[in-house]
């Protein structure tokens, strides 16, 4: 800031016309790029950006009526494009600051008698010291548009009355924190939330642990020296992996249904069939869910762990063998710490994935609302409940509010775990 105030008119000009300072000092390419950015931004704002931002606040003023031929406003589109416009504005401000900084830098170099960096040099830098910028631009833009934008959209929806009978062409309005008030004051809500959250955490922990250790164990087993035909044995889990999850789930659902093959066999022995997944089968259904999830997830963890195992530093093992370490000691002292380190992100990813595992119980045991639960069954996870609320029952804004609450809780937990994990804190352990 100081630098800017102390700078010459050339830099100050580039505060008005981006890139002009750079041009003055002879950095033509850079200057032109900045000017183009400014022109592009202004054009965007004039063409739609400005009205999008206005729309963000009003969420539409004329209701569409196809019968009368009124075109009208679509509140949801306006909200989304409004957010988009804000993102563009934010990106522009960032570039704007960058522009002034670069103008200051150039001036400083010139005033100390050096020539400003040439455009070619800066490009070269992008391939070397600043390689990360080159690489990350595309993913960051992609993630911003297709991940962050929808999430912001969802968060903002929880402050509107979108849902129920208020869907386009009806106009949506901002309602402040009404939805959150409603959730907190509703007596039916809290017990269901507590029950489902409890089960959800149990489910996430148990299935993550089970999947992870089963996958890791399988990879280690296949990695043993005495196993011949590794590719052959590895092919079976891959086969399971190759069949899409929803098909596997539908197949398992049928397998455990009353008319399915397992019950057919039970019936053949003369005993009464078992309702593995019916409405009284609370813990049985939960157990089946955990096992089926394990069947689906283990192959990919195994594949990944196999990849990691091949990346071990074998010279350490050589040394250990010379020192007389038994295979078990080698496993405990070398393999395990290494694998835990390298796969903590997997563990975390698994946890997140399982926490939000929508498919398992949607396919295995959908379509029941149990006593003691508000619009949910006793195997439903939070995400299934959210689906029931926001898609099946159209409470879109309430669903968004609940997902925001869940999101805050879960992300706080997992963030705390992640920040403490060795793969975050000690990224260099195995260097």
């Amino acid at each position, binding site marked *: 800031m100081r630098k800017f105030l102390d700078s010459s008119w050339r830099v100050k000009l580039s505060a008005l016309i981006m890139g002009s300072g750079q041009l003055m000092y002879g950095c033509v390419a850079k200057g032109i790029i900045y000017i183009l950015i400014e022109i592009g931004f202004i054009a965007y704002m004039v063409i739609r950006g400005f009205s999008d931002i206005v729309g963000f606040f009003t969420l539409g003023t004329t209701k569409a009526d196809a019968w009368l031929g*009124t075109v009208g406003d679509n509140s949801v589109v306006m909200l989304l494009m409004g957010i988009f416009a804000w993102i563009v504005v934010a990106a522009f401000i960032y570039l704007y600051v960058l522009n002034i900084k670069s103008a200051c830098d150039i001036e400083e170099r010139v005033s100390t008698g050096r020539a400003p960096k040439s455009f070619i040099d800066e490009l070269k830098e992008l391939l070397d010291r600043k390689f990360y910028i080159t690489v990350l631009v595309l993913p960051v833009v992609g993630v911003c548009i297709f991940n962050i934008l929808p999430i912001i959209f969802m968060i903002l929806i929880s402050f509107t009355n979108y849902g129920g009978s208020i869907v*386009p062409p009806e106009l949506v309005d901002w309602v402040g924190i009404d939805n959150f008030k409603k959730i907190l004051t509703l007596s039916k809500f809290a017990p269901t939330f507590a029950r489902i959250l409890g089960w959800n955490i149990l489910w996430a922990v148990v299935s993550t642990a089970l999947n992870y250790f089963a996958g890791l164990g399988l990879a280690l087993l296949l990695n043993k020296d005495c196993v011949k035909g590794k590719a052959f044995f590895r092919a079976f889990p891959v086969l399971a992996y190759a069949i899409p999850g929803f098909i596997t789930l539908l197949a398992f659902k049928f397998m455990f249904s009353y008319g399915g093959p397992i019950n057919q066999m039970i019936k053949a022995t003369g005993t009464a069939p078992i*309702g593995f997944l*019916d409405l009284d089968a609370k813990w049985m259904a939960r157990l089946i869910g955990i096992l089926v999830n394990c069947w689906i997830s283990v192959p990919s963890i195994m594949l990944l762990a196999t990849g990691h195992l091949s990346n071990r530093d074998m010279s350490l093992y050589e040394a250990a063998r010379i020192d007389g370490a038994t295979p078990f000691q080698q496993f405990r002292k070398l393999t395990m710490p290494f694998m835990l380190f390298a796969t903590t992100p997997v563990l975390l990813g698994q946890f997140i994935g399982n926490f939000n595992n929508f498919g398992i119980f949607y396919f295995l045991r959908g379509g029941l609302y149990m006593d003691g639960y508000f619009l949910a069954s006793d195997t439903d996870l939070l995400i299934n409940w959210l689906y029931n609320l926001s898609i099946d029952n159209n409470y879109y804004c309430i669903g968004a509010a609940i997902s925001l609450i869940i999101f805050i809780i879960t992300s706080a937990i997992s963030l705390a775990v992640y920040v403490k994990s060795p793969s975050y804190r000690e990224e260099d352990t195995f260097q």
Partner: protein
Amino acid sequence: MKRKIALVLIGMMALTTLAGCKSESKEATKEAASPTNTIFTGELEENVTIQVLENDTAISKGYFDELIKAFNKEYEKYGITAVDANMDQYLDLANDGPYGYGPDVLYQANDVIMQYAEGKHIYPLPVEQLDCYSQIPEAAWKAYQVDVEGNTYTCGVPVNVQAPMLYYRTDLLPEDWKSNWDDNKNDVPDMVENWNDMYAYSKEIHEVNPDKYGYMKSLYDVYFSSGFLFSYGGYIFGDNNTDTNDIGFAAGDANKGAWVLSQLASNMNEDCIDDTITTNAYSKLADGTYFATLSTPDTYTTFYDSLVEEYENDGLTEDEARDKAIENLVMTSLPKLPESGDLTEENPSLIDTKTMGGVNGYAISSYTKCPNACLAFVDFATNYEMIKLRNEKLGIAPAREDVAEELGGLSKQMYENLEKGNVVLMPSIKEVGQIWTPGQTFFTDLAKDSFRPESEKKFKDLDALKAGLEDMCNQISDAIHTLE
């Protein structure tokens, strides 16, 4: 031109509001006919293509192809072509239409179509102009009517009536049915005339051979099971299925209907708890494990094909198998119920069975560029010949009286049931989507109850059933109102 009129209309509306309340009602009636008249001017748009969304069965059985061919030939002179929209039959017009990705004309059940009407995603139609207008009963038109700002509009054109049907096989009847199972001597077996005899016969079959069953149907399916509640005074929503504050699954003697269901379940096996029977009925009816089941008319061909296959496996030639299947597979309307709800009662006084049902028909998307051409298509597709062809190809029960009359038999029965009010039409409001899961849960529980040990049974008497139904109503009410 159209736009101009619309603008004038908006101006008028603004004026009336300014002028105050007094003139409002008068102006409203004047406006009543206007949206339809301004949209459907009667001038055909020329050289346009209409995207028509039909249901999958109509496409796969070749009916749709014949329909558009016939239409395209007739309207070649105007350059109007109808094509298959090539989209999912269950697409959501409310989501796709506004962005220009929907069809121009769509065929759907009345409850689906009318949900679009609420958001004005489909046009109100000048149905009086249509050829089929006078032939379709009031009850069917009602299914497509919506009240907007005090005026009633019709937003769809009925094509056929959908309601549960009883499927059974005559070759599985007892050989002596004419002497022992036809008390009223009308040449129709008693077990398909009333549920008491069906119950008795199911029991007998199962006792003679534990691997065989009489009547089988998964209970959990609300569409099929709720009819039993309706027959004894139950209903979905009050005030002609519009008042969501009044949920009537437990109203009247609906608990007797639930009792009937649980008695029927006692002669089935555990398959009736989940959806097993819904999916295996085709092959189980064919191989003789089941004697009868419920399904909709459009599944006739699936039952028929399975039966033909089974006969062929028994060594018949294809033609013989087909003839035998036509003869033995019967689709008929539902048996009558005992007034008392007791299926073991001898000589009960009988009442009609009501069923949940729907009227499928055509609607025109509000996002079409050529409403008049679309209307011409709908008019064409609902004319006498096309509806008759539709029946021949797809076995549907037409909503047109002249076709139903000519076909006689089942089509006529269905038509009469609709007129008598025995087909309870699915509500046309959005909230209908929220009755399924609570209903499903109750019926699953009811089915499961038949297989619980005596001490654990939940529904031991009529009062318990009533309480169960009330629970279900409360759940539905919660689902609809709690978070409003």
